[in-house]
């Protein structure tokens, strides 16, 4: 009996606790992410932003959360009830489950699998289902159009994200995320692969429906896109899923290009600071860039978005895959 406990129950409990810890961390990130997003946006527009609830308005996100939780869930009469409820759950589930393979510091990872990056790519390609399901099940024109836009957009930009990931993998020689970080001990990949970083950054904005690519919920033309009919906690799940996906993209950029948990220079005072602090600092920096883009850039038109994805990013990233692999082969430095 004790053997059974040691072999099956204990590992299960440990994995459960680890996942819960990561989930709490992601939710905290989302909590302060909303606050930071609004503050930065406000600062750019010379406003004050949230400053009433709590010191410096820090509790504003909590107040919003409570408000959303206590409201009534309204389901449209002609909606497909099952799929309507399933949509936001799928979005949130998918966005949170990708975090299982993210290494926050050396060895700080729930599942250190060999195909980590492929897992993230696979799971984030499922994110589109939540949006299509929600948009279709609402049984209304605007949500459906928003859902279709979103699906086409996410599928298009996944292609260039895939090619950027392949370029990085060519320089690493492993699909394991910890190996990718360790391969950047000498130089972060942002320096040799800078064009790829730009392509990945913009594609990440499009993939997570962040402005300037927030066409699925373009309020000027589609009311609120696929979220139009959603209210209360179901709406909150969509919101949360989107934020978790945004932070996941920040973490991906940190791991692929900014050296993950590694300090910028391998010298004494910097190496004392634990890796997780560096990781979170880098993620916060990328999120700051995301917020600045949101505040500064106007929304794209839909045909421009498609043109950028298929006619600009796809050729550039394909060419970069070929160039990088030829370079590695000619100078014989392929891992």
């Amino acid at each position, binding site marked *: 009996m004790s053997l059974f406990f040691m072999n099956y129950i204990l590992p299960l409990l440990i994995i459960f606790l680890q996942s819960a810890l990561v989930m709490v961390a992601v939710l905290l990130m989302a909590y302060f992410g909303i606050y930071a997003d609004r503050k930065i946006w406000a600062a750019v527009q010379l406003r004050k932003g949230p400053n009433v609830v709590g010191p410096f308005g820090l509790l504003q996100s909590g107040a919003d959360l409570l408000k959303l939780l206590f409201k009534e869930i309204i389901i449209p009469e002609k909606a497909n009830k099952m799929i309507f409820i399933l949509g936001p759950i799928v979005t949130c589930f998918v966005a949170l489950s990708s975090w299982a393979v993210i290494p926050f510091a050396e060895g700080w990872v729930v599942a250190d*699998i060999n*195909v980590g990056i492929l897992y993230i790519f696979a799971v984030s390609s*499922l994110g589109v*289902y939540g949006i299509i399901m929600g948009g279709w099940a609402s049984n209304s024109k605007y949500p459906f159009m928003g859902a279709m836009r979103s699906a086409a957009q996410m599928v298009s930009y996944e292609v260039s994200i895939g090619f950027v990931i392949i370029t990085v993998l060519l320089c690493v020689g492993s699909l394991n995320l910890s190996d990718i970080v360790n391969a950047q001990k000498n130089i972060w990949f942002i320096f040799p692969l800078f064009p790829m970083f730009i392509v990945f950054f913009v594609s990440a904005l499009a993939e997570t429906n962040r402005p300037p690519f927030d066409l699925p919920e373009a309020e000027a033309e589609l009311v609120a896109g696929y979220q139009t009919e959603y209210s209360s906690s179901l709406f909150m799940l969509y919101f949360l899923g989107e934020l978790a996906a945004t932070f996941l993209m920040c973490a991906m950029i940190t791991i692929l290009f900014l050296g993950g948990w590694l300090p910028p220079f391998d010298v004494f005072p910097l190496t004392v600071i634990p890796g997780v602090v560096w990781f979170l600092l880098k993620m916060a920096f990328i999120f700051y860039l995301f917020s600045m883009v949101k505040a500064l850039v106007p929304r794209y038109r839909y045909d*421009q978005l498609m043109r950028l994805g298929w006619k600009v990013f796809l050729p550039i990233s394909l060419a970069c895959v070929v160039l990088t692999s030829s370079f590695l082969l000619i100078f014989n430095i392929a891992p």
Partner: protein
Amino acid sequence: MFPALLFYIFSLTIIASALMVIFSKQPINSILFLIFSFINAAGLFLLAGAEFLALIIVIVYVGAVAVLFLFVIMMLDFNPETIKEETKKYLPVGLLVGSVLFVEIILMMNSPEIFSKEFKIIGRIVETDLTNTEILGSLIYTEYFLQFQMAGFILLVAMIGAIVLTLRHRDFVRRQNIHDQVSRDPNTSIELIDIELKTRK
């Protein structure tokens, strides 16, 4: 014990959701159950230790192919009455194809030696420390390079065919040419014209 339990859970859900694909009345539910069974199939691959294939199944079938299915089914306007009649029409053909496939699988399971003699490729177990991603990569790009390239070419031809079938040039659609737009300057785009002024008498 634990893997066996997982195996039964995965396979039972695959069978159950495959049955639901056939028997559910709404096409949208069928496609969602199909996606669910794909994901469970990926789980089976994971149990067999083929993590690369499992994730490729999720990326290709669930992330790309099934999204297109879902798209098409959502856009079509289905009438439950006509679906019933269509089902009756296609039932014999479906039963024939299904039973042929079923018998083939049973035959293959009962006499594996026929197949393994003819095709030596099937079922070769390699004992190495390499992960199965590395093994697949090294085999595909060396031993089976020709077949791999042929498969790629067939897909390319299919893609070009699909584009040729759907491409239509419509002259009345105004398109944005970014280069023309950016290279405009006042000299070429602004013209001063003298207009004769008619004074009112």
